[in-house]
């Protein structure tokens, strides 16, 4: 097995392949895909398609097939979670201080004039697949942070598997993990942690996945304060403010990384209702309470083999 790690999309990209001979080609395929996703979906690049859409003032903007797919994925996430994961949180996210690449966000600052109000809602986003264009209502700012990285992981894994020609691949983008092809015997061992920067051989629970993806949403990893109030990047669409629910992290395994990350983010937003919501859909999940307690849903392995 060969593993490579580098920086992409402002986070870490990790690629593991079971067939060493295909490693170089797989990495090139992943990087090409990530470059395309960055050009299409970054809200911190003035030349991205997303920024053009948000600047259009309600007018139609041309959209590449990849950008249309990313928008469609975001709208699916919103509709399948009854609006818990909504792409129109862009303005709320910016108003709460996360207005640039996180590395440049000041850790502290004065109080912000934040008004609690429901975000505009995903139905203000329109796609015209026939003419390959999209538009949002004036003033609405779309953010694809909850879905684009996971979608990229799925696409990158598929591209890497195709380029490698044989075996299996795992792609991790900042902790959003997708696998494709034949896994190692028993499955891909993955450490479930709150911070994707934790080394894979660090303390925590290790699970095995053979297909699909696994993703974690956490309110602990990126936080900043304004006026003494601690903020984070997961916005509750119902209030337009960072969530204040019972979970500080949610890890979900699903048929794809997109589905896993959608469910994980929805769990943080839904709060206590998330357990029922996840179990009704048969999604294996591990939820960490703000106090550190762990709740797992059916399908998630028992935690007797926690390490550390």
């Amino acid at each position, binding site marked *: 097995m060969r593993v490579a790690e580098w920086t992409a999309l402002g986070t870490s990209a990790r690629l593991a392949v079971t067939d060493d001979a295909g490693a170089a080609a797989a990495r090139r395929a992943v990087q090409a895909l990530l470059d395309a996703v960055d050009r299409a979906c970054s809200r911190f690049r003035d030349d991205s398609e997303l920024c053009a859409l948000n600047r259009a003032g309600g007018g139609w903007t041309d959209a590449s097939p990849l950008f249309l797919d990313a928008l469609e994925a975001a709208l699916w996430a919103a509709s399948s979670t009854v609006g818990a994961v909504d792409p129109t949180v862009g303005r709320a996210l910016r108003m709460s201080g996360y207005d640039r690449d996180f590395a440049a966000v000041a850790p502290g600052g004065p109080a912000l004039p934040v008004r609690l109000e429901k975000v505009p809602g995903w139905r203000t986003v329109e796609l015209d*697949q026939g003419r390959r264009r999209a538009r949002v209502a004036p003033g609405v700012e779309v953010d694809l942070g909850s879905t684009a990285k996971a979608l990229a992981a799925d696409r990158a894994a598929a591209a890497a598997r195709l380029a490698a020609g044989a075996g299996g691949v795992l792609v991790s983008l900042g902790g959003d993990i997708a696998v494709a092809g034949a896994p190692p015997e028993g499955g891909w061992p993955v450490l479930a942690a709150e911070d994707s920067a934790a080394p894979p051989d660090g303390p925590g629970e290790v699970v095995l*996945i053979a297909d699909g993806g696994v993703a974690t949403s956490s309110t602990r990893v990126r936080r900043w304060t304004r006026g003494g109030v601690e903020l984070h990047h997961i916005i509750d669409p119902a209030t337009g403010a960072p969530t204040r629910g019972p979970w500080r992290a949610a890890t979900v*395994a699903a048929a794809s990384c997109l589905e896993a990350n959608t469910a994980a983010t929805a769990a943080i937003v839904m709060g206590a209702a998330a357990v029922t919501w996840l179990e009704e*859909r048969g999604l*294996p999940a591990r939820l960490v309470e703000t106090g550190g*307690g762990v709740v797992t849903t059916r399908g998630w392995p028992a935690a007797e083999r926690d390490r550390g």
Partner: protein
Amino acid sequence: MSQQARKEREGAMVRRLTAGAGAAALGLAWYFTSAAMTAVPVAFGAQPASEPQPVGVEQLDDHVFVRTVHVPAPRPPAGGVGAAAGRTVAAGAAAARTTSGAAPAQPAASTAVIAQPVAAPAAPAPTPKPVATTGGSTPKV
């Protein structure tokens, strides 16, 4: 139904559909639904997903239709999630939901205890070294 009655009914349907399409073109067609959580309405001409299959259409009046569509929910992984030492728990298995620190329920004790020679338990399989970490992050997309 007589041929004349059928023609009259078809004519009415054509007029109603025309009125509905005109309403959609004017941007009047945002719809509401009281359907289940997995079914949501979408507007004609502004499809948020790749043409989901409609599961019902209700006409409220000559101008407004409610089209209910099924939106697929997130699906569990086909292969489930395995424990690191190799025990696989299939998605949807009837394992009890657990909370950290909670002791599992103990089975009732047997009333007949018979000593049997048993083989020493095998050493637990080593935990495989993780290949990646899933955790929170905030990338720039």
